[in-house]
């Protein structure tokens, strides 16, 4: 089975990718169930928090403050992490980050590496590069393991295998772990993963993690998780490599009092995640004695310089916007063609691609703003979506192919028609005449030809009324401003 394309450079546009997924009723059922469960838990725990809005405001302000002073806090983090025994590396783009990690692993003579779920490693497509370098990566998060063994791709930022159900997990584990008798209850499946991974934890001496937060004040890294696979990877190996985007930094340790509270409630509907780990550099006698941090730019400094878009970098990857999004809830994550799905993916992915790929994603939204409402760091996603749409249109305006693009020509024509009252009146008259052929007896249009068919594919359109507003107004004026009887 070949998995969905999750490289924004190769993935088909969103509407095209979404079409086959919408036919997959099993996947849609799985996605709807999972997002419903998380949302219910999240809403209950947010409702019990009397100071939720104050926490949101503080979280948003902390993240915005970091971005405004990013160079300062990155320097502070680097200084303190280095002083604590960590080695800090800087990567301008994905290729550089991959090379740095591979070089470290080669120096360690690693043939295998255990990984904690990290979005950033998916962003830089680390695993395929490791394979090419002869290093096999073992995902230790249960969901990531399911996907890795099933040759599948993540479809959610927090629960990446939410599109797979227990029978599918059973089939994958039975086949890949050679356990033909494995039952399909979640308990037994988790136990199988525990046994399978325990050997890896105890024997593989090198680990790769992401980071939820980097603390500038003392150069420490914070990771939140539920299963304990994170603690295993952070504690047992001799060498640890942490890959993090440059925007992940927080000023002080105590800022976690805000961020941990909003993250846990938003991500999984818990008061705090079962496990949070914090460490600074290398601690003699406890955990890995070699520690590397790879700080990744990969388009982030460019986003930082854009007025409206900067807020994209406030994101703490809780995925609340995915769970609430009426578009994501129908398609799941694969349609987005990027590890970052949903509303946040729709604004982050094209920007990480320097607006050269994934330009269909800012349109994968109804602009209903449910995402903004739940965002724990108050990212105004609709505002960014609209601004990115403008950027996409600006690009299209420069393209030579625009003259053969029906959408572009249609917009040009609309621009011409709407530009003058008399042209508009004329167009209304002809439109009424033309649409009459497609209008049913009850006054509704259900099927339009050519381009218009895309509109009527999923919605009906009211036919043109006999009298337009302009006609009515003109008639009213002629009568001296009195209502028609």
């Amino acid at each position, binding site marked *: 089975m070949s998995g969905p394309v999750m490289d924004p450079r190769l993935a088909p546009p969103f509407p095209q990718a979404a079409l086959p997924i919408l036919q997959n009723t099993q996947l849609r059922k*799985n996605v709807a169930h*999972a997002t419903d469960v998380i949302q219910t838990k999240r809403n209950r725990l947010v409702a019990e928090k*009397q*100071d939720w809005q*104050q926490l949101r*405001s*503080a979280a948003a*302000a902390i993240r915005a*403050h970091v*971005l*405004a*002073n*990013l160079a300062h806090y*990155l320097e502070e983090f680097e200084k303190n992490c280095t002083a604590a025994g960590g080695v800090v590396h*800087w990567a*301008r783009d994905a290729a550089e980050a991959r090379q*740095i990690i591979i070089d470290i692993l080669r120096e360690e003579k690693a043939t295998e590496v255990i990984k904690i779920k990290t979005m950033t490693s998916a962003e830089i497509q680390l695993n395929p590069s490791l394979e090419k370098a002869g290093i096999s990566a073992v995902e*230790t*998060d*249960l*969901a990531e393991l*399911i996907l890795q063994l099933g040759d599948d791709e993540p479809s959610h930022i927090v*629960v990446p295998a939410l599109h797979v159900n*227990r029978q599918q997990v059973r089939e994958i584990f039975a086949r890949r772990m050679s356990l033909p008798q494995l039952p399909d209850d*979640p*308990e037994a499946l*988790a136990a199988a993963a525990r046994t399978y*991974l325990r050997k890896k934890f*105890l024997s593989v001496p090198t680990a790769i993690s992401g980071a939820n937060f980097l603390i500038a004040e*003392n150069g420490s890294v914070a990771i939140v998780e*539920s*299963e*304990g*696979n994170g*603690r*295993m990877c952070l*504690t047992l190996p001799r060498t640890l490599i942490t890959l993090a985007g*440059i925007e992940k930094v927080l*000023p002080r*340790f*105590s800022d976690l*009092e*805000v961020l*941990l509270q909003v993250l846990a409630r938003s991500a*999984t509907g818990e*008061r*705090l995640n*079962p496990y*949070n*780990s*914090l*460490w*600074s550099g290398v601690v003699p*006698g*406890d*955990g890995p004695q070699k520690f590397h941090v790879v700080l990744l*730019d990969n388009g982030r*400094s460019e986003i*930082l*310089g854009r007025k409206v878009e900067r807020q994209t970098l406030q994101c703490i990857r809780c995925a609340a916007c995915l769970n609430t999004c009426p578009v994501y809830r129908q398609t799941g994550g694969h349609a987005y063609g990027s590890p970052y799905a949903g509303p946040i993916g729709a604004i982050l992915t094209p920007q990480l691609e320097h607006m050269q790929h994934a330009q269909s994603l800012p349109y994968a939204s109804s602009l209903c703003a449910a995402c903004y409402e739940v965002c724990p760091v108050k990212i105004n996603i609709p505002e960014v979506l609209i601004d990115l749409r403008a950027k996409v249109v600006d690009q299209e305006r420069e393209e030579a192919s625009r003259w053969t693009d029906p959408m572009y020509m249609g917009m040009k024509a609309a621009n011409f028609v709407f530009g003058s009252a008399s042209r508009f009146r004329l167009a209304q008259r002809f439109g009424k005449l033309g649409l009459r052929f497609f209008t049913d007896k009850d006054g509704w249009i259900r099927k339009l030809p050519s381009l218009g068919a895309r509109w009527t594919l999923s919605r009906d359109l009211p036919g043109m009324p006999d009298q337009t507003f302009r006609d009515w107004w003109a008639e009213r004026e002629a009568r001296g401003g009195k209502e028609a009887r």
Partner: protein
Amino acid sequence: MTNSRQAIFDNVRAATKADVDRYEDIPRNYIRAGGLDSQGRIHLMTERLHEYGADVVECSSADIRQTIFRQLHLGKKHQIVIPAGLLPAWLDSGANWLVDQNLTHEQIEACDGVLTASSAGVADSGTIVLHHGAEEGQRVISLLPDFHLCVLRASQIVETLPEYFSRFPEPPRLATYISGPSATADIEMTRIKGVHGPRFLSVIIVRDDF
């Protein structure tokens, strides 16, 4: 590599050169301190731990040794790993204590359980905080065994997370916050206890608050 560092810093500085945003101006009108008394905090902490499926008992300062022994005995836990700095007065001679001094991961894993103290408890979220000092031990001992018996003094329990951070203005070198035993909801959002960390968490709250 140095070039990359320079390039990133140049870009970041250029992107933020006009920004003025002071740390002091961050609004912090969220709830910092809770309103519960000691009894209320213990009650809430216990309730939360029960929600996670953890076991909770209370004892007086004088009864710590007996309570530890009873809890281990009830759970049929014999071989117990302990951090080197644990108070000898806690250790009943009836149990088989294995002090964490140069133990291999395999030796630690083979134990029935681990006994540690803790640095703080946060009642609101039912969180046990370990800073991995002498009484709490290195991280691996409270990770590999399947059973974690944790002693929490009532005076260490705060109500809210911000209160914990006020208590420790100096960031710890290491910290683990445990809010319930290892769990996953990755398969059909069904919560399953115990994937990798200890499956059983048992907490002894010592009433040193009288």
